[in-house]
């Protein structure tokens, strides 16, 4: 099996995907992902020169839009009903700093 990803790569991917993995999980994930990526090989071997991609499965559908008309939404308590933590009508999250800050 080809080594597409190292454990270090996998840690980087996990960080981007925001999934905390311990050492054992990183090792297992690395093995699993390498096996799966191996199985994707056929896709890299096709001669696809000049073939247009199909990003949207049903061709012909385009310009689907709605009119600029207001629809009823949620009351504040409904919006917040599933919030793990809320305060002053807002969703509450712990300190963001160290999160890559701005965009």
């Amino acid at each position, binding site marked *: 099996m080809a080594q597409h990803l190292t454990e270090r790569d996998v840690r980087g991917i996990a960080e981007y995907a925001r999934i905390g993995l311990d050492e054992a999980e990183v090792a297992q994930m690395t093995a699993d992902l390498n096996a799966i990526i191996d199985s994707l090989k056929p896709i890299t071997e096709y001669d696809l020169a000049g073939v247009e991609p199909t990003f949207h499965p049903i061709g012909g559908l385009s*310009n689907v*839009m*709605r009119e*600029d008309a207001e629809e009823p939404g949620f009351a*504040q308590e409904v919006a917040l009903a599933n919030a793990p933590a809320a305060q002053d009508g*807002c969703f509450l*999250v712990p300190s963001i700093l160290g*999160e890559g800050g701005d965009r």
Partner: protein
Amino acid sequence: MRVLEEVLRDWEAVIGLEIHAELTTLETKMFCGCKLEFGAPPNTHTCPVCLGLPGALPVPNKAAIESIVLAGLATNCDIERRSMFYRKNYMYPDMAKNFQTTQGPVAFCMRGHLDLAVDGPAARERVDAAALSEGEALGNIVRTAEGYTAHVGITRIHMEEDAGKMVHVGGGEGRIAGATHSLVDYNRAGTPLIELVTEPDLRTPEEARLFMQKLRQIYLAIGISDCSMEEGSLRCDGNVSLRRRGEAEFGVKTELKNMNSFKNLHDGLAYEICRQAEVLEEGGRVLQETRHWDPSAKRTIVMRTKETADDYRLFPEPDLAPYNLSEEFVERVRAKLPELPDARAARFERDFGLSPYDARHLVESAEVAAFFEACMDEAAAEAGALAKPVANLLINDVTAHLNAHAGEALADLPLTPARAVELVRLVSEDAISSKQGKEVFAAVLAEDEDPAVIVEARGMRQVSDAGAIEAVVDAVLAANPDKVAQYQGGKTGLIGFFVGQCMKEMRGQGNPKVINELLAKRLG
């Protein structure tokens, strides 16, 4: 740190802008039917779509697509018939889906431009323009009589959605640093947002400011946004790098944020240019980083360093059908294009004989321009003669008043087009002096009364009768023989003293023009 004008003699600044405008004049959000309303109680304008609930799907607002096409047509862009939405994936709590729906390599609007007229003090920052003779071109600029024009390329305008709003609690002054937690409000999440990206064609902070001002005038004219910089519906980021004059290679750029007023845009860029020059002159290296303009400290501070490009895992949004805009769609939008500020200014020059400078400043505000046109209707046959003084009144007195009284609109002032015309007519007929004109203007605003009535009530009628003035002039000269001698000995600056004495004698009602003429004759 050296000052900007000095720095720009040695260094050329290369500036590009990214300008976000919320389409605040629409009723609803970009991908759902939630109402757009600034300042509503938190999380009262949400639904499954803009809260990013599991299973929700977006449906684009047709009016938003029309708005961006309108913006593209108004900024000389090509309208791309075929484009798609993409997902820009990154996790941040103000983004309900943790991806932003935006556009990919092809945006609705591509390859546009705006031409800026830069003159007066604003032109001084462009040191290489000074050496040109009128009509001569250099790069993207052409020298004019009053300054120069700059051709600024627009890379693209793409459609996207705004994020929610966050309040950071527990730190100082709502800052994220030191905050113990943050509160998220998704009312703004999903607000239709258009992002315009310029080419790196700007060379001075003034050009950047003028570009932003001009774009704002256009957006206001086409009615797609309230363009409120205070409320954040118009926002600007800048990319700045320096290179030695004469060099072709771009330097390392920094991205500048929080320039939320025209002044901050100018001052932030000016500071950053000087800062980079200092770093480079001391042999240092400019780091690729995002910096935040702090207007109170008057400096930029690092927000984060990014030595590698962000990887947003962009891919086509499968939940939204691609666009294939018809000719008919684009033409229907084009038919909605109003007269744009440049065209209006050209018409003012042509129809009323205004200077390019006056015409341009009149159209800076659609409201002022419309008022000017109403005045010209009022002036009827005298339009040609009164255009210049009416323009002056609007550009100087009215604009100064509005600038000094934030929140007041021209429409709310007691000054009507009829009163404005009456006022300038009184001055142009020499019934009152221009100085008295200013007093009357203030009185119109304060008392909500017609200029003629004010002039009458205050006995302000100007004395232009040469006989009456002659007597005063003679008396003043007779009372000051020593000053007369000094004047005739070469101290011609004393003319102001004599005029002042005459005016004092006449309680300010003497026509200064006649006084000046008579004094010149007597002293000559």
